[in-house]
């Protein structure tokens, strides 16, 4: 009873981090130079699976993310395939190392960040990275990915290992809804239309994809036809798909578990401003810090739940009609 080890919170179930950790273990055989870097948080990032399956390729850096991030550059320089793992906020702590020693040095190194956004939940604002997509997107040569469900996370894990270049990928802490089947495909730089519609396009990434599909369902009952696009690659963004959706639906909503400044919304707005300008509404945390609470409660409080997407879709359609 009292002598039993405490259960790790949230490590069971279908969270994106668990899916990532399991995928990494399975891929280790195929990528003999793969090494995983950890800053004493393997239980939280999902790489405890890798630690168990491949202890000789699991590199412990202690609670020292700056050294870990830059060391990944050195490991890549001598032919290893390093995957840096920690929480998204601590990737921000080491972002200058990612900039100089990974991106500028053009290293084939991957950064995989768990605990992004309000999805972190009860740990509160200090741990809820709402700035990481914007920050990493601003680094030249950095590919930025945020998959939507466990299946897509596993596919994206393979894709980033096969890809030559620095990548920042978000996973997720909380149990995630399963959206895709075994036939799902993932390609870096490509978005997918998950639901057809002609009135508005909702472009979402990460946990917001499930909420976008819920919002589309709610709006369908009000005779509003919502197109839902899953956009797991924030950089490089799928400009061709975005322009086509803007052309065909005339307005766009972006949805992300991130600050409305500079993340998916920013990337979509930049792409459409240059190709097919149209009314765009942004669903995201409105330039404030998060708070403690369960992820679904926080999503409602901060307006990034399906209700927030419904409102934004209506606003976008109204602006389109007024134009």
């Amino acid at each position, binding site marked *: 009873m009292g002598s039993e080890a405490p259960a790790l919170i949230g490590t069971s179930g279908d969270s994106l981090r668990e899916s990532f950790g399991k995928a990494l273990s399975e891929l280790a055989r195929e990528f003999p130079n793969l090494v995983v870097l950890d800053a004493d948080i393997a239980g939280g990032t999902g790489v405890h699976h890798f630690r168990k399956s491949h202890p000789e390729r699991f590199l412990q850096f202690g609670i*020292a993310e*700056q050294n870990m*991030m*830059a060391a990944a550059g050195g490991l890549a320089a001598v032919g290893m395939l390093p995957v840096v793992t920690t929480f998204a906020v601590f990737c921000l702590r080491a972002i200058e190392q990612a900039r100089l020693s990974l991106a500028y040095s053009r290293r084939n190194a991957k950064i995989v960040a768990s605990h992004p956004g309000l999805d972190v939940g009860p740990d509160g604002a200090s741990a809820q990275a709402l700035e990481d997509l914007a920050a990493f997107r601003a680094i030249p040569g950095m590919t930025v990915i945020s998959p939507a469900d466990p299946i897509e996370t596993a596919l994206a894990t393979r894709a980033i290992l096969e890809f030559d270049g620095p990548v920042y990928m978000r996973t997720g802490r909380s149990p995630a809804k399963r959206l895709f089947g075994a036939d799902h495909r993932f390609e870096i730089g490509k978005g997918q239309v998950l639901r057809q519609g002609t009135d508005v396009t909702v472009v979402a990434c990460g946990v917001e994809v499930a909420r976008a599909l819920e919002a589309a369902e709610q709006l369908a009952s009000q005779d509003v036809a919502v197109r839902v696009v899953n956009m797991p690659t924030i950089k490089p963004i799928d400009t061709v798909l975005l322009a086509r959706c803007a052309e065909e639906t005339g307005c766009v909503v972006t949805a992300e578990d991130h600050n409305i400044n500079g993340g998916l919304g920013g990337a979509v707005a930049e792409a459409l401003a240059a190709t097919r300008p149209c009314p765009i509404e942004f669903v995201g945390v409105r330039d404030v810090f998060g708070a403690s609470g369960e992820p679904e409660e926080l999503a409602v409080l901060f307006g990034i739940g399906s209700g927030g997407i419904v409102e934004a879709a209506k606003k976008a359609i109204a602006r389109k009609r007024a134009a």
Partner: protein
Amino acid sequence: MAFTPKAVIAAPAQQKPTPARDLEVEIERAARFVRRHTIAAIYRAGSGHPGGALSCADILAALFGAELNLWPNTVADPDRDRFVLSKGHAAPALYAIGAHHGYCDATAALALRKIGSPFHGHPHVRDLPFVETSTGSLGQGFSVALGMAMGLKLRNSCARVYALLGDGELQEGEVWEAAMCAAHHKLDNFCAIIDYNKLQSDARNDAIMRLEPLSAKWRAFDWAVAEIDGHDIAALLRTFRRAGATRERPSVIIANTIKGKGVAYMENMPAWHGSVKLTRAQAEEALEGLGANRKEIREYLDGV
């Protein structure tokens, strides 16, 4: 814009004489070349950090002249020794020792900091084959070098990794993260050299942020520590050999140096740390002090 190197000042041919004293003389000659070339490049660039480049000239000359298992035709060999200039602002000295040993063209390297030149203000791995990683943000090169040492061990390579750090650089927290990590992982293929010239950007280390007791700090982090005169070539070579024979622990060489060494008016003056513009008279005086004759001075400062 294409960059066209023109060999006017030829790099002296590399010689590896066997008697120990001949080797030391050869390394001293290389260090003098590094100092002259550094002054000329910074004069031509109109900016650059002379103080910390001059202080580490002997260390670089000893490493490249005798210690590193590295030659211009092995810069892509997976089992070559790695050298990382973590104090990236000493780039002119790295380019100069590279030129001396034939890793790059000596005249081309005088285009330091010029647009289109690969000889950037701070070293960039993608533009020069003997630069192992991009540096210029203090602390990072040390961590990258640690990652190299770790990876080489995983690959069962016998190659060694050397990182040259500035003393002011030791104020970066990342350095101590890396120091703890290297000792924990018993990286005995890893050697750090501290260019301990006692001065940093604004003033003496003591005035900005005290480093002492420095040897004790490294010993407490479980490194093998040696403290030597960083301008004594024989001591440098001896200490590198000792570091190479150390097992189960990384080594650090605290090399006591003089900032601006070799240029009388710069020695121990913090003003010559930062990026400065050298006047014609200052450049000439410095080169004269470094034993260059009038013809050589003209070639260094005006040659095309």
